[in-house]
């Protein structure tokens, strides 16, 4: 039977029945169980005006007070107001971002969000009571946190309902949210989102409602989302959650309605672009949807494979993927700054036409963002205050996954004999810093003045690799699995992680002093560089020092001319090591021969040998000499 004819007949039938042309749900049906406390729940109806780059929205909010306090206000993040002008705290000291000149923007290129009406379930109009607050810097021109005083207080355990209308205008993309040429729209952090009412480190309850500042990302409560988007039918729409229905609007040509449902998420993002080509697949219980711009379609299988590898590895080493679907958004290159980001059940990546398969920056990014579904999406730590808890773990797993599937020496790139593993790249990003002692890791994002990525992502990942090498991968996995299992769908903090680490190490009778280690990694700027200084066969003595204040136990492997070996323990609190042997035929001495201390700033100076193997030096000298011959051949052509 002709397939096209069948579909047309079906469409006509459904239209006659007075329905729009709905398609079946994408996600599997048993995804309705409650996994989270469902504190902040949103039903949002969106009417997108793609010409005006704006949307008129209706939002029904159900928010549960899980604190012991009686609350007289709600606070909302209004992130889009960070892109309202150059007076917001996010942009006030910025004139250029990602090569864009922000100073000369036209009015229509800026974004904003405003709540036009807010009514509680008793009919009280709260609209005129709302006011912007600036808990961080007092910048009155910053409108990224909204306070909504309530008429009726919310008692402990009580749920409040609020009917809101709001308008959101997207900026031309500065970073993440925004619009780009040819009707590209990324709606992320786009609705009035309730801040988190939680206990701080001292145990006091209060609003965690930081203004939107550079160096910070997001923090919000779990809940359910029903989002209905009405938009022009030339747009291909994707988003967090499951696309439950999509089809034309009865009586309105050129329009479509798409409905998403999502459970137990901390946020909801969506994307629209007319040129998207959709690739779908299923891996285990997870549907994978990939939205590719046409010129990147050759990368669809690479995206897909990376997601499959991420799923397989994380399910084995962390825990089951808690959602039925993942949507991978490939932003057009003209709006590349909307990429590189994670949202629950949806990630934005980035690629460029022509990147060869031997350069796995594409896979690395996909896996990184996908790992955020665990560290951020499920273990919803505070990305503003403790960014290392998600970015550090995600980079660590990005390294592990890439290195596992592609080899630890060439997982990131392998071009013309030059290659790098992903963990090697992460380590080098830290040890290659101009000043590795620039600052501590465990501090809020807004306190960073440089070195954010090198410390939060790379140093944390390298520290986790070091810990893994010391305690072993099995114990490391046990720690992470326990952490995930116990704290999923909550907002874990450093103390929660550390308590799990102590517990697992104790159960396994490990001697590793994790508290001392993590204190140094997270709360000091100390670094470590072991150096083998000398081998003196006149006295049979070896000398070594530790540069940097990072104290960590290690060992030294000494080899003798008869092939004999001896291992010496070097306690972390000793800055120098001097050891004299009875034998005077030492050939080499090697500090940390298994390279467990991956944080070491220079691994090359860990060893000293009196019988060096210079063959590779000849090899690379010959290679450099030959490349000279090649280059001189080419350059002499015109002479």
């Amino acid at each position, binding site marked *: 039977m002709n397939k096209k004819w069948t579909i047309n007949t079906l469409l006509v039938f459904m239209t006659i029945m007075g329905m729009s042309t709905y398609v079946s749900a994408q996600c599997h049906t048993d995804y309705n169980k409650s996994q989270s406390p469902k504190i902040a729940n949103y039903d949002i109806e969106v009417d997108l005006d793609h010409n005006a780059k704006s949307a008129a929205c209706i939002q029904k909010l159900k928010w549960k007070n899980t604190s012991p306090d009686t609350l007289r206000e709600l606070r909302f993040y209004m992130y889009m107001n960070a892109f309202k002008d150059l007076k917001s705290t996010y942009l006030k000291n910025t004139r250029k971002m990602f090569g864009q000149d922000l100073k000369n923007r036209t009015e229509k290129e800026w974004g904003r969000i405003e709540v036009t009406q807010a009514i509680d379930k008793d009919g009280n109009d709260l609209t005129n009571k709302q006011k912007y607050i600036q808990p961080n810097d007092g910048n009155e021109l910053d409108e990224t946190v909204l306070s909504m005083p309530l008429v009726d207080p919310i008692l402990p355990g009580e749920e409040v309902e609020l009917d809101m209308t709001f308008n959101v205008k997207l900026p031309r993309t500065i970073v993440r949210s925004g619009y780009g040429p040819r009707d590209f729209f990324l709606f992320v952090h786009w609705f009035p989102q309730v801040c988190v009412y939680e206990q701080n480190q001292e145990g006091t309850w209060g609003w965690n409602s930081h203004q939107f500042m550079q160096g910070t990302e997001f923090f919000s409560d779990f809940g359910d989302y029903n989002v209905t988007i009405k938009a022009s039918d030339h747009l291909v729409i994707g988003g967090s959650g499951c696309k439950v229905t999509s089809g034309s609007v009865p009586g309105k040509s050129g329009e479509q309605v798409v409905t998403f449902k999502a459970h137990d998420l901390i946020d909801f993002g969506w994307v629209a672009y007319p040129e998207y080509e959709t690739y779908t697949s299923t891996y285990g219980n997870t549907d994978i949807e990939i939205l590719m711009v046409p010129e990147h379609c050759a990368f669809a299988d690479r995206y897909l494979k990376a997601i499959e590898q991420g799923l397989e590895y994380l399910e084995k080493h962390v825990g089951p993927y808690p959602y039925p679907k993942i949507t991978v958004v490939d932003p057009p290159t003209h709006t590349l700054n909307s990429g590189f980001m994670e949202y629950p059940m949806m990630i934005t990546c980035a690629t460029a036409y022509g990147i060869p398969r031997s350069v796995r920056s594409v896979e690395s990014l996909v896996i990184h963002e996908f790992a955020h579904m665990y560290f951020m999406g499920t273990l919803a730590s505070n990305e503003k205050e403790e960014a290392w808890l998600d970015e550090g773990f995600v980079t660590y797993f990005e390294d592990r996954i890439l290195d596992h599937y592609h080899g630890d020496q060439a997982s990131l790139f392998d071009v013309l004999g030059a290659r790098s593993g992903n963990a090697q790249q992460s380590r080098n990003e830290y040890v290659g810093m101009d000043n590795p002692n620039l600052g501590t890791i465990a501090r809020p994002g807004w306190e960073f003045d440089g070195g954010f990525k090198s410390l939060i992502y790379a140093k944390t990942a390298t520290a986790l690799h070091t810990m893994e090498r010391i305690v072993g991968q099995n114990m490391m996995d046990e720690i992470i699995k326990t952490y995930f299992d116990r704290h999923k769908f909550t907002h874990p903090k450093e103390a929660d992680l550390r308590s799990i680490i102590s517990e697992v190490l104790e159960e396994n009778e490990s001697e590793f002093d994790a508290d001392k280690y993590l204190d140094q990694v997270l709360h000091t700027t100390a670094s470590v560089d072991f150096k083998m200084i000398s081998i003196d066969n006149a006295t049979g003595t070896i000398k070594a020092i530790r540069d940097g204040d990072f104290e960590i136990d290690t060992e030294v492997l000494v080899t003798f001319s008869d092939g004999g070996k001896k291992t010496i323990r070097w306690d972390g609190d000793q800055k120098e090591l001097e050891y004299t042997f009875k034998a005077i035929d030492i050939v080499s001495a090697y500090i940390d021969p298994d390279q467990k201390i991956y944080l070491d700033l220079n691994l090359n100076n860990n060893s000293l040998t009196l019988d060096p193997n210079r*063959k590779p030096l000849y090899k690379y*000298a*010959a290679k450099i000499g030959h490349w*000279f011959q*090649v280059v*001189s051949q080419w350059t002499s052509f*015109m*002479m």
Partner: protein
Amino acid sequence: MKHWKSIVLIYSLQLLLGILVAIMAFQQLDGSIGDSLELDRLALGFDRSIFSDMINRFPDIISNIQSRFVVSALMFMLLSIFLHAGLLGNIRKREYSISAFLRNAKKYFLKFLGVASISLLKTLFILAIIWVPFIEYMGNPLETFHSEKSFILTVISLLILSALLIIVIWLWSILSRYYLIDESRLIEAMKKAWKGLRLNFLRYYLVGICLLISHVLITWLYTLVVDDWGAEIWYSILGLIVIQQVFSIIRIWVRVFGFAAIDNVAKE
């Protein structure tokens, strides 16, 4: 292969400069990681951490090697005018000895310097005509072009166009040199060369294209063959050097072959 002596002479001079660069590179590498056991790891293949750590701690290594590399390459560029004078003189006059090579090199060096300078100016002119308007038009490429695919394909097209036009200038330059050997006036030789090039354009151009493609293929083949050759035993080092030098000689031989082909077309 009648010009094998010229090939050996050119190769030897190039090798000498290559050895100077290699010795310098060896000294720099040896000075930074020469006593480390990490060399055993490096013997198994490229290890990014070893190189990264070395460059992080000894950042001057790269600039030192780079400056020696660039200075030597510039020296060879100048030297190659001299070598071209000897080689083209031998080819044109059907001479094959080293002494004839050196005599021709000495005789035509200054004249060839003039041709090379004019050819360089022409090349720069052509490149400016192609690339300056493109860069002006391009602005922010991601906004100007529909996608990076169209941008990348445009750049590749312009690169190919540049190469195709540079081949014309190169052929003109080589023919001018041949005519300069026949007579002494530069402008007259260049006019004759242009006329000759136009008359037999397709045949000359075929030689130019073949020469370019063969050089690209040889470089590509070398990277395929060598990639990251291990250094666990001395024979592997020796094998690597032999293969490298075979490729170098082939490259020079192909060029000499191309020059002789141009001369043959010119003489017909």
